[in-house]
């Protein structure tokens, strides 16, 4: 194997310059604001932290936020997989328009989506009317809103990977007598799994922190349909910056741990794929 020196590979010149640029930008946009969050939360004593974190209201809101985020990200992994498959593998009239529609949740203000979903799924709304159970103002409504905002993540991470899948492998497998199910499980799935996982993680992370769309459809009843971001906003409305920062930090830590676990898993999967190839 030929050893490739690092120097020859650089296409953009000036490592020091680019690194400096990266660090400056990352600090200004991400690290310094987050540092502010940490500083605010240190104003809270250990006892106050403890009281905040074991309060029933906080725990129930946390559970609600996590579970609805998990369910919606999980559902979206399957819906998104199908959507990506259809968009990549089939040619049909209106495909381009459908492709553009996938991005709408990215562009639309989430509050607009929330209000629209509430209007439609409320009990006197055009869709909610036909159901015997309540959709808006329940955890089902929250999940629906989260499904809407996180839809593009899975589709957009899977699409390029699926487009790059070599058809020859599938054809070879087919010629060797593999069933479509086997082809999917042993040829397609391993190739798209890392991207799929990324899509799931992105959707999940986005769903935990979602506020704008959920707050209209949630109902916001303490202990029942109150999401964690709403708790933060209600702390801010009481001018309790420190408590709000503390909840923010907690959410951040949970999200960080989850992202870290997902990344580790993904790296392991990638390594396996590289070995097999």
């Amino acid at each position, binding site marked *: 194997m030929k050893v490739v020196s690092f120097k020859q590979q650089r296409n953009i010149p000036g490592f020091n310059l680019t690194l400096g640029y990266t660090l400056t930008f990352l600090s200004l946009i991400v690290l310094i604001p987050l540092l502010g969050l940490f500083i605010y939360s240190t104003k809270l004593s250990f006892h106050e932290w403890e009281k905040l974190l074991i309060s029933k*209201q906080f725990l129930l809101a946390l559970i609600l936020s996590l579970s609805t985020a998990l369910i919606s990200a999980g559902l979206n992994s399957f819906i998104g997989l199908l959507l990506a498959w259809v968009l990549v593998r089939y040619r049909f009239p209106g495909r381009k328009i459908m492709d553009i529609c996938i991005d709408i949740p990215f562009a639309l203000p989430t509050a607009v989506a929330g209000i629209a979903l509430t209007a439609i799924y*409320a009990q006197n709304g055009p869709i909610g009317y036909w159901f015997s159970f309540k959709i808006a*103002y329940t955890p089902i409504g929250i999940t629906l809103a989260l499904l809407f905002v996180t839809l593009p993540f899975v589709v957009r991470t899977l699409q390029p990977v699926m487009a790059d899948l070599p058809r020859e492998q599938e054809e070879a497998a087919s010629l060797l007598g593999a069933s479509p199910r086997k082809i999917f499980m042993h040829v397609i799935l391993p190739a798209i799994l890392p991207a799929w996982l990324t899509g799931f993680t992105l959707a999940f992370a986005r769903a935990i922190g979602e506020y704008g769309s959920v707050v209209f459809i949630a*109902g916001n*009843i303490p202990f029942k349909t109150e999401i964690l971001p709403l708790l933060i906003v209600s702390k801010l409305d*009481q001018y309790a910056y420190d408590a709000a920062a503390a909840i923010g930090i907690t959410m951040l830590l949970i999200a960080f741990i989850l992202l870290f676990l997902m990344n580790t898993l993904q790296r392991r999967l990638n390594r396996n794929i590289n070995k097999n190839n």
Partner: protein
Amino acid sequence: MRYQVKKLPIVRKQYWLSISLILLAICTFMGQAYSVELLNVSYDPTREFYKAYNQTFIEYWQQQTGETLTIKNSHGGSGKQARSVIDGLQADVVTLALASDIDALNRYQTNISPEWQSRLPNNSAPYNSTIVFLVRKGNPKQIHDWSDLIKDDIEVITPNPKTSGGARWNFLAAWAYARSTYGNDEQARTFVTKLYQHVPVLDTGARGATISFVQRGLGDVLIAWENEAYLALKEQGGDQLEIITPSLSILAEPTVALVDKVVDSKGTRKQAQAYLEYLYSEPAQHIIAQHFYRPVNPEILKQYAKQFPEIKLVTVNDYFGGWQKVQKAFFSDGAIFDAIYAEIN
């Protein structure tokens, strides 16, 4: 060579562009030097009222001094607006829903004299309002007073007192009714607990609650600001909704104040002071009444008696001992409102 010839017109265009931009900037600067600009940071349901009032005041000020004023308004949830001013929004005057939101401006640094509330007549409240009920046309559930709200099949719409200033007035009005009807705080608490068991959705603000009630068809009764109820009636044409005035309610006093720190640095104290004082003048009081706020001038209030039926009103200061006490006892973390929800669930 050809490349340069091609490029030249673009360069020239940019040159003109920058010159005109500089001129524009100078003009804006000069314009600002000659006309004084005021910023009024207010809360949500005053949007329509201040739009009308600003126009009247600008004309009045021009007649008095010959000076042309520009007045800008910012609206949003009362608490959020106070927070923006704390965080540095350069508001000359604040006209918020609660005295405690103006007090909050002094939470981290002194933006405003602590005695601000005594600087203008009537506790710095040039208009007031109260809490009433909005029901469906014909009042199908026969709701006439607070005690009807806890009947079995009634659903009540009110926003969350933790995030909405208006909702705190609602809560206190219900509490005041129950305490004066049943006798003591304990029974008032039982009543209010029952009341919140009839609430299916807690919106984050007063406007949101109105939308839930009017547009989503949620609930049988909306507890609302009087002016917000009239606005909803006006928008819906009055053929679907009806306003019910309970036997007892609370005197809601939205307060106004000038922000000393900002007017002194901008040199707009004179104008800002006049802007607030003129709210008590006769023409302004008429505009206030026309926008469904109760004028503080008793003569003018009488002229609009049809719109504002008489109602027994209690005040936060006399009945509850002021906002600071109320905030601590009822709405801060772990206080009565939280305890009520812990009890319900």
